[in-house]
């Protein structure tokens, strides 16, 4: 696995036989053959054939940390946009404040940004989120940027290697939501730098050895500053 480019597959492309491999994410089976169902990048391990999506909405998974924007405050809950196909429900029981019935607007209003955790996804894809976990709160200040949800794993890196690099060299606070929203806070220049780097990662998400490349780039720049 060195210099080859990753293969882009399109829906209905034949990927293999179920006798040899198991069908993973982004694939479907018909008559014993595995086909791609979405536009994406082929990624096969020893057991499964997966297609990593290139485009599309965030598909919520229980336990994911996301950044949401409040759409509406209702009498005992809020509706929150988390960039999924469906709005998510945040019930008053799931926040750290003691909210009285009908007083939700005192705490969160339409347009407010929150860091949240996906609490539940049911079979009808009804979504519930919660603020009751470590470090979840209403966001004040900072910058919010959006990336393709499918690129988030690359931005975080293996064992958060990529994101800790960016944090270290740009001296910013960064929170990456699994839904493709990223919150950055720091000095103006540093934030600019972080945004540039994230955009670069997004652009080159499919190349190999990206973490090393980004590290070199960040090192070089930080030297120029000194």
């Amino acid at each position, binding site marked *: 696995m060195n210099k080859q480019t990753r293969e*882009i597959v*399109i829906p209905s492309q034949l990927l293999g036989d179920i006798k040899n491999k198991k069908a993973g994410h982004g694939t*479907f089976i018909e008559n014993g053959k595995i086909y791609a169902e*979405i*536009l*994406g990048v082929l990624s096969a391990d020893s057991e499964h054939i997966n297609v990593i999506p290139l485009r*599309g909405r965030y598909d919520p998974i229980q336990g994911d940390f996301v950044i949401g924007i409040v759409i509406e405050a209702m009498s005992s809950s809020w509706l929150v946009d988390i960039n999924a196909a469906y709005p998510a429900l945040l019930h008053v029981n799931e926040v750290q404040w003691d909210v009285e019935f009908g007083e939700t607007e005192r705490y969160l209003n339409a347009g407010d940004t929150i860091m949240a955790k996906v609490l539940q996804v049911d079979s009808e894809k009804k979504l519930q989120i919660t603020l009751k976990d470590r470090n979840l709160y209403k966001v004040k200040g900072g910058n919010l940027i959006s990336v393709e949800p499918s690129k988030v794993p690359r931005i975080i890196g293996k064992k958060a290697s990529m994101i800790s690099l960016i944090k270290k060299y740009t001296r910013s606070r960064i929170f990456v939501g699994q839904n493709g929203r990223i919150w950055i806070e720091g000095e103006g220049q540093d934030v600019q730098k972080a945004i540039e780097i994230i955009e670069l990662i997004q652009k080159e998400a499919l190349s190999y050895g990206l973490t090393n490349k980004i590290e070199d780039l960040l090192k070089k720049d930080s030297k120029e500053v000194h």
Partner: protein
Amino acid sequence: MKTEIKLIKNGKRLDGRKNDELRPIKIEAGVLHRAEGSCYLEWGGNKVLAAVYGPREAVPRHTQNPLRAIVNARYNMAAFSVDDRKRPGPDRRSREISKVISEALENIIITEKFPRASIDVSIEILDAEAGTRCAGLTAAAEALVDAGIPLKDIPVACAAGKIEGEIVLDLGKEEDNFGDADLPIAIAPRTGEILLLQMDGHLTQKEFDKALDLAIKGCKTIAELQKKAILEKYQKNMEG
């Protein structure tokens, strides 16, 4: 049918094509920024823009299906797309086309993945020159791929017809107006399933079979162009 125009001269059609030749087709994916997926397509004199929005929660609520997504395609002709100004807004014809395209797309989208949602496809005909429903459906399919929506196949449409007693592929404007029959179809190229089939005019059983075969052949050619267009866009993206 009395026509002054000779549609076939010396074995060639009005625009110089052979009987089994398509008009030139140009496909470009991902042209709009606000839509989840989009496609611009030129097919002879047709110019079509298709955009996909969603999957998103379907409104009004009673249209939601708790088991699968609904597909709303909206076919619309611009006022300036035809010789005489077309009165804007949906009419009997465009509502029919919207319906048949919606149903064709519903068959290949894996709708079970998005319960209660709707997938909205907007097809705008900017310039019309016969065969807009085929062009519209082909563009819509490309936009769906671009939107990252799970599909079982990439549908593709093409028409065949009969002019002056001969079966020809992909009718042009005069051929459509003065010809004997028009047979637009849409297929799922992987399985060969037929997703849409309409017919205008008269064909014998034999002629029909021949026209169908010819149209399917045309569809398969266009399917290759579709795949090429999407790969081109994303491979270029990868190289930065």
